């Protein structure tokens, strides 16, 4: 709970009080919104799994992709329940560049894995690419979280 020197409902704050309130609120939200340790792991596993599932036989690949999408959606739902927040990866601010970069890397690696399989390459190639993509995704998730919280503190992206 925030402790302010004025009635929090209707008393008009002085400009200094208002600035202090805004700064405190942003700082509290930045601390509260810290992503739990398990989220980047789930995100990395889900995203990496999208590429790795292309190692499966053609008729099973859609099942693998669906399972990975379920992991991603389930992870996001769990994060949402944990934080009480909903946030889009595409929100304005520094996070948008990170989301765009991750989207491009993800599509490129999945395309590469698909191409490799289409040309009769070893199933180990999509698996290796999936592991690489998973690590990148987990790190990107942490970077996105840091950028989001930095945006909160500075008031960017609001």
């Amino acid at each position, binding site marked *: 709970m*925030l402790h*302010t020197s004025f009635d929090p*409902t*209707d008393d008009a704050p002085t400009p200094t009080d208002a600035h202090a309130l805004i700064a405190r*609120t942003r700082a509290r*939200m930045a601390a509260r919104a810290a992503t739990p340790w398990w989220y980047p792991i789930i995100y990395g596993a889900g995203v990496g799994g999208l590429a790795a599932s292309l190692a499966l036989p053609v008729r099973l690949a859609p099942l693998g992709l669906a399972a990975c999408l379920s992991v991603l959606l389930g992870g996001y739902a769990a994060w949402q329940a944990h934080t*009480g927040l*909903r946030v889009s990866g595409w*929100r304005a601010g520094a996070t948008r560049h990170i989301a765009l970069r991750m989207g491009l890397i993800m599509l490129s690696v999945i395309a590469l894995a698909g191409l490799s399989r289409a040309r009769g390459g070893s199933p180990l190639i999509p698996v290796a690419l999936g592991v690489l993509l998973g690590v990148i995704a987990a790190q990107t998730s942490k970077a996105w979280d840091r950028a989001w919280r930095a945006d909160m503190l500075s008031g960017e992206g609001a």
Partner: protein
Amino acid sequence: MSALQLDPVMHAPLRLQLCVILSTCDEAEFALLRDETGVSDSVLSKQLRQLEDAGYVAVRKATVASRQRTWLSLTRAGERALRTYLRALTRLTEAVPASRR
């Protein structure tokens, strides 16, 4: 409203705090807003209704696992109003001598 006038809807600590919280995300759950502001459900509902009436906040109710949850978000008008308020507040602070702040 002149550049140095503050939006009266926004210029109340609790409503300002709610708008700042909502500006950090796409949606926030009612329970989070209550925890962060430390006010009762009824006080929070009243303040949110004022923001909703001003067109600054949108309310969405969703049922998850047979439990209803209320999600709040800033509307485009709310985002604009907050940006305008923050600009006016900065100008006002700069215009007032430090000894009178």
